[in-house]
């Protein structure tokens, strides 16, 4: 199993609420109050109808692997990680989010595999959402 670094994300005005919630283990999504679209990544305007009338809710943290790759040799902070998986996970709520698949042999990851969120704390007080095979 890979040991991944936990780099702190680039927190900006646009995403600070999202990352603050990760400190409490909450994966927050936004939903448009006008057209019901679920948004990804966090932003002020609904990208379907461009209203600012959007609200935030806690996502289930469950999804399936939409696609993945096993990175055989990482770079920079991931240089010593060993083979690790970058994936798009399709959340139950719809969005496909980029992430890592962890807590399993990288060779066992498959498209369509059910996964659930796990949190890895960064040194900045927030946490990275990664996914493991559903227990």
């Amino acid at each position: 199993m890979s040991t991944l670094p936990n780099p702190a994300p680039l927190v900006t005005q646009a995403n600070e609420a999202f990352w603050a919630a990760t400190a409490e283990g909450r994966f927050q999504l936004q939903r448009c109050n006008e057209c019901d679209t679920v948004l990804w990544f966090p932003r002020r305007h609904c990208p379907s109808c461009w209203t600012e009338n959007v609200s935030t809710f806690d996502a289930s943290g469950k999804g399936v692997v939409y696609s993945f790759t096993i990175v055989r040799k990482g770079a920079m902070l991931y240089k010593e990680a060993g083979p690790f998986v970058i994936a798009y996970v399709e959340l139950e709520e719809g969005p496909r989010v980029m992430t890592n698949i962890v807590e399993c042999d990288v060779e066992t990851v498959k498209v369509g595999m059910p996964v659930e969120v796990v949190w890895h704390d960064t040194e900045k007080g927030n946490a990275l959402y990664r996914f493991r095979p559903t227990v």
Partner: protein
Amino acid sequence: MSIRGAAYIAGIYEHPGRDLPDKTVWDIHIDVALGALADAGLDMGDVDALFCDGTAGFGVLTLAEYFNIRPTYVDNTETGGSSYLAHVGHAAAAIAAGKCHVALVTLAGKPKSGWQGPSFSPGPEAAFEQVWGMMGAPHSYALAAQRHMYEFGTTSAQLAEIKVAASIHAQYNPNAFLKNVVTVDDVLNSPMVADPLHRLDCCVVTDGGGALVIVSPEVAKKLGKTNAKILGHGEAVKHTNNGRIDLTHTGAVWSGPQAFAEAGVTVKDINYASIYDSFTITVLQTIEDLGFCEKGKGGAFVADGGLVAPFGKLPFNTDGGGLCNNHPSNRGGITKVIEAVRQLRGEAHEKVQVPNCQIALAHGTGGSLGSRHGSVTLILGQEDA
């Protein structure tokens, strides 16, 4: 209004170097500019429009100063490696509108001997992509390849056929970075970089550059040589679509139909195609998206020498492409246009020259298949095409 026939590519130049430690990026810009202008029979003083990507300092401001010219029309369109195909389309439109007569497009970069590339400020997506170790193009393209395999049964051996075809062509190009012919097994036995992409599924990393000169019909006529007529152009941005990215297609599904409609031709009319080949999967998806075969059938299309010039179903990248010849500045778009023009002029190597090449297509894919990219399709033809 259409740009069909409104402009011609009169000058092309590909820097012969692949490792240029002793030249600056600016030297290379000048070298290729002078090369393409000489090829056209023009000189720097004739240039009234300047095009470059976002990697060249302050873009057209930097280059106009360094070239010491005073263009009346400038364009800094930045769509990654497809930028230069966009520049051609934009130059043709500007010429059609009477804004300029002689447009110069240059690309230069040194990723092999000393990176002097772009430093873009992070976009709003950065915080949700960079933390996962996504630090190279192969990782992103691998995501697209994996999904394509899952949905359509595409195999690594089929992807390898694309590299094999490129290598067959590259053996005839004395400037190609990789001149050795490889087999499907060579590709499959090369180290895995990011599953399912092997090392030989990836393009080369080279220094160098290229330039194009696009001129009005009046100028082309005076030059009195075989020029490539611009028949059609289409461009599109494919992105993550609010977290609903579809990794099985590229923006060519949108840029292709625009270009074909403007040119008034179909895939059956294309004698030669330069298809952006940052990775083998880039070619496979693009061929499907442009309509050379059905979606999902690209694997079968490229098998058994389907891309090998001069007699394959779709002779492609006869210079060896980005996979073997050259990917200057980590951007393969300008060499795609250059080889298409060589084919139309009958100046490709005799072993790979498509007989009576009347209509050629060049397609660029800049950015990443796994997130966002700019797709640009150009269709070029002989004078009477």
